[in-house]
């Protein structure tokens, strides 16, 4: 559900609590008023908490249990929490062909997708910084790729890239003089000669990365536009008077102001791209060298009906993600300190 992106990320730090009192000794609130607040709070939060517990927390705990059991879809009806626990699923998942390849693909896909999306978003935000007639409409129009349903977006892309009747291949063969149409979404690699050297381009992977960039740059654009609006004009003005050129003003005035936002964006986009299933499944079905871990989980679950392996693979995905994000936060935190 990456479409949810918009909200949480952008709402910033939680508000300070107006009802907060200095902590007293002991846990239980003492006065009648705070006892009442405690009761009312628990009462009001309980429906949400119940739903989240039943539909998210318990299933995830169960998924952990399933990952350590040999469960297949055929014998699923008899499965409970208590069963024979084994590490077989993890060894199966890790030793099956293409396991580390999928992880590598996921990392490449997320890193490149995130970087491109943020890069394009930054360019868009800068290009639309100074007001002009129709800027509001253009800004709104640029958000379309992000709000459009993923199924419709992927369908249009695959039609545009279709080798038989897609407009891209028509343009390529008729106008650009390609020798043959390119199967962007089903061809693993495309030999291209650059400066006389033969280079194999992983064309399907590149295409899904470009799709990801197209689809999520508006998110970065929105974020950075909001942050740009908050940069005081005075700074820029002062630098201009001091004779700083536009690139210098960007490098030394704007960029330092934008960096924390870019850092937050990187984490958010990376997490969402890393977990992404829809885009790749709908574009290539995970074929032609684009199999990411999320698609593998889905295949284990539906094509092979191997629930244990699917859970194990999904757990590995979550674990790798957690490690990478922690690593990033550590590195980034240190950078902040030193600068």
């Amino acid at each position, binding site marked *: 559900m990456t479409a949810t992106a918009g909200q949480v990320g952008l709402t910033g730090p939680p508000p300070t609590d107006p009802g907060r009192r200095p902590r007293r000794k002991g846990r239980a609130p003492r006065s009648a008023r705070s006892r009442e607040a405690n009761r009312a709070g628990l009462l009001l939060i309980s429906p949400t908490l119940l739903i989240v517990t039943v539909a998210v927390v318990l299933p995830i705990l169960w998924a952990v249990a399933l990952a350590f059991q040999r469960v297949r879809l055929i014998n699923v009806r008899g499965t409970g929490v208590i069963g024979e626990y084994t590490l077989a699923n993890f060894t199966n998942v890790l030793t099956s062909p293409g396991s580390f390849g999928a992880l590598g693909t996921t990392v490449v896909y997320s890193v490149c997708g995130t970087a491109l999306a943020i890069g394009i978003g930054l360019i868009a935000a800068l290009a639309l910084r100074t007001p002009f007639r129709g800027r509001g409409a253009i800004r709104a129009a640029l958000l*379309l790729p992000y709000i459009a349903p993923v199924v419709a977006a992927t369908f249009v892309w695959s039609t545009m890239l279709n080798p038989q009747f897609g407009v891209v291949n028509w343009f390529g063969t008729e106008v650009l003089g390609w020798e043959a149409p390119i199967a962007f979404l089903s061809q693993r690699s495309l030999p291209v000669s650059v400066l006389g050297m033969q280079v194999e381009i992983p064309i399907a992977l590149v295409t899904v990365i470009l799709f990801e960039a197209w689809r999520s740059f508006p998110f970065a654009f929105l974020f950075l536009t909001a942050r740009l609006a908050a940069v005081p004009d005075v700074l820029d003005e002062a630098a201009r008077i001091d004779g700083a050129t536009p690139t210098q003003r960007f490098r030394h005035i704007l960029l330092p102001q934008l960096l924390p936002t870019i850092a937050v964006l990187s984490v958010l986009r990376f997490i969402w791209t890393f977990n992404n299933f829809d885009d790749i499944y709908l574009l290539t079905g995970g074929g032609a060298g684009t199999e990411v871990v999320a698609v593998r989980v889905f295949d284990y679950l539906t094509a092979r009906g191997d629930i244990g392996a699917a859970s194990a693979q999904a757990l590995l995905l979550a674990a790798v993600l957690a490690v990478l994000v922690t690593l990033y936060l550590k590195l980034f935190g240190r950078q902040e300190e030193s600068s």
Partner: protein
Amino acid sequence: MSSTANARRTSGGTSGDATRRGFNRDRFETGLFRVLRPVVVVLLLLVALLPFYYMILLSFRSLDSLLQNPGALWISIDEVDLGTYRDVLAPVAAGGQGFVAFLRNSLLVALGTVAMTLLVTIPGSYAVSRLQFFGRRQVSGLFLAVYFFPSVLLAVPLFVLFTQLGLRGSLVGLVLVYVSQVAAVSIYTLRNYFATVPVALEEAASIDGASRLQILRRISLPLAMPAVVSNGLFIFMIAWNEFLFALLLLVERRDAWTVSLGLSQLSGSIEVPTTVLMAGSVILTLPIVVLFFAAERLLTGGLTAGAEKG
């Protein structure tokens, strides 16, 4: 920046040469960006909008005309073929693709998700923003964690659970899953708005003898209404666009398919012409785009609220 600027200022005082070079570079860059800016804006617009234009264009063409002339980016008015929309909307019994039924399902699921989510998260977010209760911090942390969980990890046990309960193919089951997925987001956005409602107002009502629920309903909720509406629109969009859970839980029952699922399933078969499905894509996308532009101010406001804190 200070070092560069200072260097330039001091050197500018002593040697006019450096100043002139700086001035030239400045003029060059300013001129360059003046030219580049509109180019970039036009390029971005093209890249962002061309696929949607292509979608609409193809939805009005027959497959034959597409195969004959795949490069046409413009069609004359008498080439417009509305048969695609007829085909895609008509029920299966009448030889169509049954998108009207899909639309009904999507609408039911999306509206159901909005109603149920707001019903539980309005009191929930009020509690998180206003009331100091036992475990509040942990609850907030839990919701945040839920938000970043890979949905595919959740998909496995839910798939198994729904299979066991025989709930696969049920729209109600899907709504429950959606509510649990968006509840965290909803609480996160709503509580920020509740926090902006002056405490004094609530205290005044409390002194007048209003109960907690009355305060929430009569004072806080009306004041947070813009946030509630934009939040509802967002939840609607998420539920309407969602694909993974719809695929896992509904795929065996065609009469329960949502528009997203229907489009993805039919696009895999060669029997349905691409242009008919393009009409389906337009039908899937249009409600979201209309909603977005109708409420754009509200939505982008909600999107960026607090973003300036970085």
